[in-house]
């Protein structure tokens, strides 16, 4: 299925195109939102809101600037963080202690376990990815949580990204190249 074509259709107001994108990405986005807010009811409401926002704001998405999923992820992340700030006014402050207590003290839920290639990374690299991508912490918040200097944290990030890239196998690249060729050819 050509995602670009579906996005074009979505821009023209085709609901089925939205459902196509929902079927493809709702799991990934729900995984992120649920890990960030750790509350199923809220996560479900947020997921619906996210796709409504995608429906309403798809005109603002510019494929030249990046992939659709990245754009959708940003919407998901911002909406979730805003919802968390609203639900607890303390989070609005910069007091990381409160922030940490609110979002880290509960027991780890089943769905929070990371899967796939990221599991193959070393523990501290996994933690970096988890904090900034799945928990929505900024670099500045995350390095304090991990109790390492910001410079060290940034080099962890760099190493983690490199390893992630190296881990994804050649077959996927070949597959993507073939699709690219056929789509453009």
């Amino acid at each position, binding site marked *: 299925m050509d995602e670009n074509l579906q996005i074009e259709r979505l821009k023209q107001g085709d609901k089925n195109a939205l459902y196509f994108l929902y079927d493809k990405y709702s799991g990934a986005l729900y995984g992120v939102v649920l890990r960030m807010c750790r509350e199923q009811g809220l996560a479900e409401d947020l997921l619906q809101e996210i796709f409504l926002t995608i429906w309403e704001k798809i005109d603002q998405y510019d494929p030249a600037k990046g992939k659709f999923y990245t754009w959708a992820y940003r919407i998901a992340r911002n909406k979730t963080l805003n919802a968390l700030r609203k639900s607890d006014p303390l989070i609005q402050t910069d007091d990381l202690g409160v922030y940490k207590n609110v979002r880290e003290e509960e027991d780890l839920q089943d*769905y929070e376990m990371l899967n796939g290639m990221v599991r193959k990374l070393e523990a501290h690299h996994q933690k970096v990815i988890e904090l900034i991508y799945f928990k929505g912490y900024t670099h500045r918040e995350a390095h304090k949580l991990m109790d390492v200097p910001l410079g060290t944290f940034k080099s962890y990030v760099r190493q983690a990204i490199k390893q992630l890239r190296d881990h994804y196998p050649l077959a996927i690249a070949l597959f993507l190249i073939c699709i690219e060729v056929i789509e453009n050819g």
Partner: protein
Amino acid sequence: MDRKTILEKGLLLPYLLDELDEKERLEVEKVLAEDAILKAELNSLESSFEKMALENAVAPPSSIRKRLEDTLGAAGTTPDEKVRSIRPKTGFDGTRLLVAASLAALFALTSFWFYSRWQDAEENIRLVREEQQQLQKSIEVLSNELQDVQQLNGLLADRDVIPVLMEGNRLSPEARAVAFLNHKTRSVLVNPKALPKLSTEETYQMWADVDGEMINMGLVPTDQDLVSLAYIEGAESLNITIEPKGGSEHPTVERLISNVYL
């Protein structure tokens, strides 16, 4: 700002995560629009994170899609006809995707097959080379042995060759050596294999007695099958002595171990 600064500061990920402030974001976007390498870097980063997110997907309850459909349906934004009119194209995309997937799989499998065949061939060539080297060595050893046997056989079959058995005296009762004399070709060969081993500081040396004078015929190392020595005209006897390493000009008569009159 340029590519180098963005990469050094590690700004691509914060950009992807929407962490940058408005000013920084616009600056990064400006460079991205002009720099294909940086854009490729971002694409790769996006792909990695997208794959990772898909691997960590959690299936939402089906009720959410239903709620979404209800909400949008009530809004009535799109006429159904429009949706139907573009449906056939979706099927076409499916076929193309299938073709792409098949081609990719075929390509990957073929590559892998060729790679394994290549590795097998390399291994076979290596084994054949090793075997060939071993055969070569065996041939060399056999060839040397054959030469010795032929030489010995030649000596024994030659009617002009006189074998002389040299036995050890009381100094070395177990010593045995065979000298092959050929007066016609004026040559002497000795088989020293049955002489007892000496220390590394000593050697056997052979002498010919001519008119009461001992004349040097040469050293007799015991690690050879046949030792060629100097033929001495008019020799009356053959003698073997033990000498210091490297041999002597005059025989050490006290260490004479064998003496045979001709």
